[in-house]
């Protein structure tokens, strides 16, 4: 369907599609097997300005909005959600600086993120703090001109691959949600290290590790925003970033649909292509309907977020739930359409199904997203 993209947006889509078709799709199975970080592809995306897309113009970026990033991520996600995650994680890691950082902090870090010279990662989750961000135990204590961080972050995307980490830590345990602050930690800061790469069900080539802070000392001016604003920065970041995850769901669902229809037209049983059987046809129809519906919601949410920066939580959460649930359903059905072949690793749909699952989990589980939507409804109807 025509979404009336501007010429510039269409250009971004076409370029992302070209890189996806020529470089990502031919290599995704190999990266899934080896679980190796896709550095060559990440560097290609950087050279083609995709890391500049989400950085403001005054800090060396292209100043693209949420919609622009969504369009790019949809194409890259159509090729491989793991590789797209390796890319998107830098956007997520950079957003706290974009939404909450001082001019000095932005000037110091954003130009290198825009050029791809430095990759970023976002560090919130801990063993006792995931959906309940209030359970954070990592602490930061001021000692002279330095903050001293202690604690462990868990399942951090781009761990070991990023050059800078935006980290939330408790600066005042007596103040509850207002006692948390965000910091920029550089990969070579003393007392900072990454654990081994986790073995995952899907998105295998994206790096996921623990981050360990052991008396990790960083200069005082690495705090993002004011002390105690950590949670606000995290919420603002996730509101902006979730449509990106949603668009990975749209891209992935589209890829699974494309594989399914192509296969159903070429697979003959009982003397007919299986697309001629209504049982298969209706499955494909539902996959297409759901994918288009998800895409439409993601695009509308992204445009809303670009236009109404103070009121984005509900739109952001809604599109994340819808598109990632659709991705899960459509990829499961794709494996069913391809049946025995679909279950084989020689065909791409089993990987798509494995990759889909994380979309319902990371950047806030879909249950948490429904909480957000519900809470917003509660506010709206007072």
């Amino acid at each position, binding site marked *: 369907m025509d979404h009336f993209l501007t010429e510039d947006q269409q*250009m*971004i889509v076409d*370029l992302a599609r070209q890189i996806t078709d*020529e470089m990502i799709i031919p290599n995704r199975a190999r990266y899934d097997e080896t679980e190796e970080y896709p550095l060559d592809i990440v560097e*290609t995306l950087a050279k*083609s*300005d995709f890391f*500049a897309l989400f950085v403001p113009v005054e800090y060396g970026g292209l100043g693209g909005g949420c919609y622009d990033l969504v369009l790019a991520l949809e194409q890259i996600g159509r090729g491989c959600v793991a590789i797209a995650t390796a890319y998107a994680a830098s956007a997520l890691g950079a957003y706290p600086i974009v939404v909450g950082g001082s001019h000095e902090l932005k000037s110091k870090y954003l130009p290198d993120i825009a050029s791809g010279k430095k990759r970023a990662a976002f560090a919130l989750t801990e063993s006792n703090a995931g959906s309940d961000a209030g359970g954070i135990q990592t602490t930061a204590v001021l000692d002279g001109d330095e903050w001293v961080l202690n604690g462990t972050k868990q399942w951090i995307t781009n761990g070991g691959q990023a050059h800078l980490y935006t980290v939330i830590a408790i600066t005042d345990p007596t103040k509850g949600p207002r006692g948390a602050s965000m910091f920029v930690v550089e990969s070579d800061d003393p007392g900072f290290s990454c654990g081994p790469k986790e073995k995952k069900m899907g998105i295998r080539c994206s790096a996921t590790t623990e981050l360990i802070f052991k008396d990790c000392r960083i200069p005082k001016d690495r705090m993002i925003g004011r002390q105690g604003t950590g949670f606000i920065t995290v919420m603002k970041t996730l509101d902006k970033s979730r449509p990106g995850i949603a668009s990975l769901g749209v891209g992935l669902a589209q890829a699974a649909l494309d594989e399914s229809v192509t296969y159903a037209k070429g697979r003959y049983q009982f003397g007919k292509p299986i697309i001629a059987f209504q049982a298969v046809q209706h499955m494909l129809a539902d996959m297409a309907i759901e994918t288009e519906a998800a895409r439409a919601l993601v695009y509308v949410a992204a445009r809303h977020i670009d236009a109404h920066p103070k009121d984005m939580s509900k739109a952001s959460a809604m599109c994340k739930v819808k598109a990632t649930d659709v991705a899960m359903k459509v990829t499961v059905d794709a494996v069913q359409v391809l049946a025995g072949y679909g279950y084989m690793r020689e065909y791409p749909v089993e990987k798509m199904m494995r990759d889909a699952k994380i979309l319902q989990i990371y950047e806030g589980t879909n249950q948490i997203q429904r909480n957000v939507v519900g809470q917003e409804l509660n506010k709206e109807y007072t």
Partner: protein
Amino acid sequence: MRIVVCIKQVPDAKDVRLDPVTNTLSREGVKSVINPYDRHAMEEGVRLKEQYGGTVTVVSMGPPQAKAILQEAISCGVDDAILVSDRAFAGADTLATTYTLAQAIKKTGDVDLVICGKQATDGDTAQVGPGLAVRLGMPYVTCVKKITGVKDKVMSVERMMDDGYDELEIDLPALLTVVKEINVPRFPSIRGLRKAKAFDIPSYTATDIDADPDQLGLGGSPTWVVKVFPPEPKGVRTMLEGSLDEIAEQLADILSDSAHGA
């Protein structure tokens, strides 16, 4: 360093068809692309610029539609583009083409390095690079697979050979033709695409490049294409099947028969 890269628009090799009646290349409906070797020439130019500073200008002789490939070149990091286009250039062989390109390049000012693809995938002559070097009075190296350095106006290169490679030094200004092994061409960038869209590509006519009309196009071309045809199939191919021993036996029989036959 001021670098000029010559590029040509050719029919996409993935999409080439022969006209069944005339047996000539059918260009109708066939997508036009940058000659694949020229992509590597462009990329090498941009890499040299990134490493040593300077500018890269792409030049293409062709019909007005060739502006598309020049725009694509801009999107891939090239600074400037010039189309050399005039009805008088039509039907040029390599002699007339090198004359035309040389006139156009001279018009752009002093050049330190000219890079061409080894050959174009449509004509496959590999003559334009060397011919252009002679016209420009430059030394040249063909089939370059690596540029190893530039120092005091001397460039070190590796020339691909059938049995390895030669290490050569060449005084600048010079002309190189490059093979695909030299690099992996980059994708366009978003900034490049925006620049390309706004870029107004100048077009040089025969008058603009002070060309002698007798040396242009069909009239300036001593080479005439008499006929284009697919080669006749030679001989019959036989696949031998069976175990290694059986195949060896069959092969021995065939060789022995053909030896006796001869």
